[in-house]
């Protein structure tokens, strides 16, 4: 004894209904997003005339280009540029929010300190009272510190002068110079470019190669106590 099987079309009917419903929803969604895309494109396209105009005129007219440049720089005067050597860079036109003050993380500092101590006895030297010693005694210890700490610097940092010129030579700070990298002192008046004598060449850490630190390590231990058994 067997039940009569429903025909194939009967079995497919509910499926077809479901498919129609889904395609209707899909079409509605597509139209919705296409609409948004079209609007956005139109908003951008509306800016096209002024963009092409200023591009063409800046190329043709030096004064206009200078005005545009000034506009940008004034708009971002608090934004430091990478170096004065690079040509003026175009920063964000939006006004800058004041920088958020945050404490420097102690970990890298502690790792570097422990390296300076390990190689150059840096902490031992600074923590010791020097007043009671003769200069030659302090000098002898300073050799240990100098040799070791210099090795740490060479191994873990690449340090280069900010200005390559010899100290004492005349240098020029162009408009838009980075005040963090080059600091004008003395008679600071008027508009850049400033010209003056290079007093200190400055130092820049070009590269930092600190060791990777295991998460389990207590970086607050700068040097372990040693117990000889």
């Amino acid at each position: 004894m067997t039940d009569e099987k429903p025909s194939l079309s009967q079995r497919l009917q509910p499926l077809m209904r479901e498919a129609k419903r889904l395609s209707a929803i899909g079409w509605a969604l597509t139209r919705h997003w296409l609409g948004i895309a079209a609007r956005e494109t139109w908003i951008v396209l509306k800016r096209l005339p002024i963009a092409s105009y200023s591009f063409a005129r800046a190329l043709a007219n030096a004064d206009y280009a200078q005005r545009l440049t000034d506009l940008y720089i004034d708009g971002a005067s608090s934004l430091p540029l990478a170096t004065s050597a690079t040509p003026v860079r175009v920063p964000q036109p939006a006004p800058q929010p004041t920088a958020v003050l945050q404490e420097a993380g102690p970990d890298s500092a502690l790792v570097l300190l422990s390296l300076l101590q390990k190689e150059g006895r840096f902490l031992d030297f600074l923590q010791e009272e020097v007043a009671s010693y003769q200069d030659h005694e302090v000098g002898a210890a300073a050799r240990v510190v100098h040799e070791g700490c210099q090795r740490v610097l060479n191994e873990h940092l690449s340090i280069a002068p900010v200005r390559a010129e010899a100290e004492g030579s005349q240098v020029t700070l162009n408009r838009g110079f980075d005040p963090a990298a080059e600091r004008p002192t003395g008679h600071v008046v008027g508009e850049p470019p400033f010209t003056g004598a290079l007093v200190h060449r400055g130092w820049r850490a070009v590269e930092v190669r600190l060791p990777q630190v295991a998460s389990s390590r207590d970086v607050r231990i700068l040097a372990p106590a040693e117990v000889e058994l």
Partner: protein
Amino acid sequence: MSARYAIGIDLGTTHSALSYVETAKCEGEEVDQSILRIPQLTAAGSVEDRPLLPSFLYLPHPDEHKPGDLTLPWGGDPTRLIGEHARRQGLTTPIRLVSSAKSWLCHPDVDRKAAILPPEVPADVPQISPFEASVLYLSHLREAWNGVHPYDPLDEQDVTVTVPASFDPAARELTAEAAKAVGIENLVLLEEPQAALYSWVNDSVGRWRHDVKVGDIILVVDVGGGTSDFSLIAVTEQDGALELTRIAVGEHILLGGDNMDLTLAHVVKQKLKQTGVELDRWQLQALTHGCRVAKEALLADAELKSVPIVVPSRGAKLIGGSIRTELTQDEVTTTLINGFFPEVSVDERPAQRARGALTKVGLPFAQDPAVTRHLAAFLSKQAGATEDLDGFVEHAHWASFLHPTAVLFNGGVFNAEVLRERVLQVLNQWLSAEDAPPARLLEAHDMDLAVARGAAFYAYARNHGGVRIRGGTSHSYYVGIERSMPAIPGMEPELHALCVVPFGLEEGSEPVMPPQEFGLVVGEPVRFRFFGSSVRREDQVGDLLEEWSADELEELEEIQTSLPADKLKRSEVVPVRLQAAVSEVGTLELTAIPTNAKPDAEASDWRVSFNTRGAGGEPDND
């Protein structure tokens, strides 16, 4: 299909390094090398990438570090520390430090696979074998490589591992076995002085063909941290193209830069002692470090009269507790230049002191510190090294030593120009005494990394065409045969030496087999006395030597074999012949082949193994 990278590994006594080239980016002899920066612990909980991996292994006490502080990028084994941190830990806790494992690997009197390092330690300090240490250094390099090249793991690349030219067949085989143990499949061994020359060829970018000419003999002097290694390489011609042929290698000399620093430290220590200052072990180490820095400054600038050295106090009081002294130019000249590189005449030989009967098991350090005297001995011994080479005949018959025409220096010691000049000057004195033209200096760069770079160049050149140094085996090898004669009380039976491997047997060439047969008892281990000679170039396979002079043949460790009893009847005497071949890897393989063997028998069953278990050790029963 060839691998993507060609890799050279310098498995050094004091430092290891890995250099590599990407084969697709190379063109002819223009090979662009990169040095792998090797992550290693530099302090507890701190990992840094360094170009060199100090070959030191430290076995820490379980409570010595916090768990987790010994983690490497790939995890790592916290009971086996390798690299800079291991070296530093060993300065203060030497009983847990394994150092110079490579020198132990070719120590004839110890079992190289037994846990003997560090030697002579308290009962609860763990020990490992020299072989295991080599495996661990290689696996550290493998993990470092795989971390940077996860899609091109080390075991799929073409790898060259360097060994001292003076390594005997057993030590070479152990090195190859260690490399196989970490999964390196495409392995070749290369002698370090050859690697140094390849590095020079690599640096010259093809110009080397103008710098040397046919008839040149290049002397490679390689003085590393722990060993000195000499090789002679001749420039020959084949079908109009220049070829390099290694014609001789020196003996294994445990003498290197570390001896020099230690010697200077002892000089300064004695000086301090006269002023009433005694140094403890820790301070002596600090002094050794100070001396190394001062030495480099003094050697670099002859005008400098002296360099101050400060031995820091161990405690936190740095200014109050430090000891100030100095190393003078005179001290460096007398101890270093006159002590290690004295002006000697070419007929002088290194002093040999009879060893005390009760010496502790230690490394057989060279007893004469004079590198120049070892060099004189080497060149004199090899006076006839070019006799068989075309175009070199005029040298041989009247010279008392082999006349090199060019010198290539390698090893950290020769970073000091003064020392390079000194060796060259001494050599040129010997040459001018025999009216020979002075030897030229071949300019080498980067002496610490040259071996790794040369090895990578070789790994590349081997598969992609390029200059190859030929040479084959650096020795001829013999088995000792007792002559049958009536027993005479108090007399040892006369010994003959049967040549089984001729000089210069090249890798991958046809196996050779002397016609003589031996009777082997099935199922019982059989040992042969084994000899090597670096000077008897003319002996052919099957030649039976009845007498030889003492410095011609050097007895090596015994070789042994055992015919398995499953294929043959136990205690049956089977006639065998000894077959010798040099594998593609560069190791010597001896096989005992029964002369009545069935054709389907596998030759590997009768492999003759080198005894790496020390004198009197039990044969391998596995």
